[in-house]
């Protein structure tokens, strides 16, 4: 899968000075499957907007975005839901967990769509991120950092060509962030998927990746 942005800029960004942005000022930006991109910028520069446009949550932009040469603005609701089940996965900054479900049920909700992982594999991932003892608690009572890890595992419980991760380590300590990042990279590599990760200041992430300055 390739994602191409052509002179794409969200309408609210038009009012801002985007002088040296490698994304908003680019005539054409190609994001390729199998590669990792880290989008770095301080708050308010449109990190979430960029991911939301690619994931179809925002349509208030100028220019065009295509996935495999299909203009995103022409996709039907059915095509979007198929895309979100099988091609694009998103770790939302706002997490989008269901408070009334347990952590494990939140993960199952996604996993059941495509029967992606076995229960053992899910428990294993939870173990890696150190949340297996919280899996049967309601998501609403977990700490934000724990919820972030639940959201990460949920996003990994589907097939995808691109994983969009929106500041997904913001409430974790350095060690867990690195573990989570490695888990994400492993899952991406297993699918030969691309990764677009936004971050306030992840300056020293391991593995090769392309940096994009907003």
């Amino acid at each position: 899968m390739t994602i191409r942005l052509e002179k794409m800029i969200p309408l609210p960004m038009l009012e801002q000075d985007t002088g040296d942005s490698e994304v908003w000022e680019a005539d054409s930006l190609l994001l390729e499957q199998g590669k990792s991109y880290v989008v770095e910028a301080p708050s308010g520069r449109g990190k979430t907007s960029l991911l939301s446009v690619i994931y179809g949550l925002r349509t208030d932009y100028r220019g065009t975005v295509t996935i495999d040469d299909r203009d995103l603005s022409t996709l039907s609701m059915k095509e979007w839901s198929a895309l979100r089940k099988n091609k694009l996965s998103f770790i939302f900054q706002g997490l989008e967990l269901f408070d009334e479900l347990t952590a494990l049920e939140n993960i199952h909700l996604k996993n059941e769509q495509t029967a992606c992982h076995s229960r053992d594999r899910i428990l294993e991932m939870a173990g890696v991120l150190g949340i297996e003892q919280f899996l049967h608690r309601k998501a609403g009572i977990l700490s934000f950092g724990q919820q972030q890890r639940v959201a990460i595992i949920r996003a990994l419980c589907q097939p995808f060509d691109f994983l969009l991760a929106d500041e997904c380590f913001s409430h974790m300590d350095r060690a867990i962030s690195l573990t989570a990042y490695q888990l994400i990279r492993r899952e991406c590599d297993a699918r030969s998927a691309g990764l677009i990760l936004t971050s306030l200041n992840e300056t020293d992430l391991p593995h090769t990746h392309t940096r994009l300055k907003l």
Partner: protein
Amino acid sequence: MRLINRILWKDHSRAHLLGAFLGTLAGFVLLLGGIQFYMDIKSVLTENRDLLDPEYIVINKKVNIGQTLGLDLAGFSEKEIEEIKAQPFADQVAAFISNEFPVSAYTENERFPDFITELFFEAIPDEYIDVKSEDWQWDPEKGIIPVIIPQDYLNLYNFGFAPSQGLPQIPKGVVSMINFKLRLRGEGRGNYEDYQGRIVGFSNRVSSILVPLDFLEWANQKYGYFKKNDPSQIILVSKDPTDPSIIRFIEEKGYDTIREKLKSSRMNIILKFVISFLVIVAAIIIGLAFLVFLLSLQLMISRSSDKIKRLSKLGFHYREISRPYILLLLLLMAGITGFSLLLTSLLAGQLHQTAETWSLNISSSLHGIIYAFALGLILLISAANMAAILISTKKLCK
């Protein structure tokens, strides 16, 4: 339970759904009960209905002194019949034919005194007569002649003749069991034959003794020797018997008709009015309950709007998201169908018992059409709600 159902069902309001459920149930019971009751009463009324359909009008000539003196004709001439046929309100016209031989009836029953009377017969085509066809058949082999007599004859006997003579009164239902013989006489002495007579019905509308047409044609052939008379009565079928031009024509020509029938149909009209009122009230209740249903489900959806948007973000199609609501709707509808049919049939059973004490014969089980009606209505309400659910979830997922 599926996770998505659990997520979306959490936001229901039990009071709203229960209210909508009970309201729709009440409306359904009232409506189905009303239809059941109407069909029962209709069948009771049909039993007592005249053997001639109300759109049939029987016309005869007014008796005047000219006829008495033999100067005027009592029957309708060919020309007069043609004239009636030519009227715009006359869809079908048929003349009565009458016997061309002497007839007498007599009883041979130990409980009644011997009784003999001269009679006459008239006949019209079978399609104008509304009795069970197996009762209205002439079979020369069996020799039983079915007869329809005016209701007044029975009234005269029961309320006038029988009490004054110390004879038993005869209920309508028993009349068909009375044994009497009919003697048909041909020309010449000793040329007669006896047949069994059987009264199969009464009419308020024809002042005549009716027999099947094929019998009378056969008998006229076999015994007839009178001069053929012009028919004294004409039966007229009109699509709209209330058409005032019919009465105008009849009066203008100096003919006459029995207007008695209007009285019996009034009862029918009042009953129809009461039932329609019941049905209208039931329809309003169902309409309101349907609205409450619609609004409860819509409220439930809008309370869950964040969750619905979240599910859509996770890749759930709006059809998948609307499924829990549709499932809930169908469960409630199935409950309403089941309960309303149960309650209506209990009601029908109760009504059946009450009616039995008045010796009215109404069915104790539900009419087939009740099931069809309940099902049709439920499908309609479900379809409308389903469409509303799909529309509003789709809107939220956009």
